[in-house]
């Protein structure tokens, strides 16, 4: 039973760690790569 408990605890910890790192990388990416002006304009045009 203890081994199953370890799987639960480690499993959730690893999932949060992996996805947390992915989140940080994606946030960093969004800071580094800004949308080009024409992409921003296309989006604003689509609202109007």
């Amino acid at each position, binding site marked *: *039973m203890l081994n*199953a408990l370890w*799987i639960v605890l480690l499993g*959730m910890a690893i999932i949060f760690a*992996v*996805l947390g790192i*992915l989140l940080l990388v994606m946030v960093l*990416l969004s800071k580094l790569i800004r*949308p080009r002006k024409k992409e*921003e304009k296309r989006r604003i045009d689509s609202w109007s």
Partner: protein
Amino acid sequence: MTTGEFLGFLNLNWQAVAMLVIGGVLMWLGIAKKVEPVLLVPIGFGCVLSNIPLGGAAEAGGFLAVLREAGIHTEIFPLLIFIAIGAMIDFEPFLQRPYTILLGAAAQFGIFGTFFLAYLLGDGWLHVLDFSLKDAASIGIIGSADGPTSIYVATILQSKYTAAIVVAAYSYMAMVPIIQPPIIKAMCSKKERALKMPSVAGTISQRTKILFPIITVLVVGLLAPKATPLIGCLMFGNLLRECGVVERLSLAAQNELANIVTILLGITVGGMMSGTEFLRPETILVFVLGVVAFSLDTVAGVLLGKLMYILSGRKVNPMIGACGISAFPMSSRVVQKLGLEANPYNHLLMHAAGANVAGQIASVVAGGVMLMLVPIFS
């Protein structure tokens, strides 16, 4: 040669009759009730084919057995389906709200909670059911709310209940609109459900959309390598969609590939439902634990949603946590409907879709993590 050796009905036993009825019910659900017809019709038909005595479709050398060997045992079918899913999914709602990945992570507790429960009922403590550690892990993966991941993990772990697990995973996805609303309503007050979230999110550049699948494969693959085939196929399909230079391949993945593999996968899974293997008390428990898995997913997702609601100063509607379950797009629709019920001007669909596609990534990671940990602790 006696007549009993070539007349199928003389060889019918109660298990075969029961499975023919179950196959009929699955087809009825798909055709008459429109419950996941794309899957339940082939599965139901495969179930009927494999239980016709002397038919030999699912026996060694039969075409269903050949498909099982070629597509399920090699894990090819679920991986090909993932290419198609990747090509169909627009990750923009998630990229606009990357924090939703944490809701996806939390909702995977359904997998691990159900795994623990199944193991306690089986070899772990009570010994009332024939559930080994690997069977329990395969049953828990129903909580990924993702058919291909369930097949992939259950096949690699060589569970005895693969057919039941796959049928449960697919049929419960259609039952998300029944399973989730009572749990969400019990956990979120009307005031919380009525909370509006800003409808306009930031622009995501095309370069980000192209880099996203590549970066995801690298991050997930390097940290949880067992998830590489699943996340690799999912992200390959998405790269085809987003790179903008292989539209023909993207459309082929979304249509021809998805349709052909769904037909083959469905009928093969149905062919795995032979009476002697399927009809045992454990199968019923697999279905019960499937509901538990979906419910725990929802509870865990909403709990983190509530935490975000508090920490954000009441800017995040806690209901979107329920979409961390990867049943895309059913779960998003459920939350959108509940939001509109509480407040007619509350459109949560894009926020919910963000959490929902994040749940797709999280469920694949959870599958890989399960495959990594179970052999270590077996």
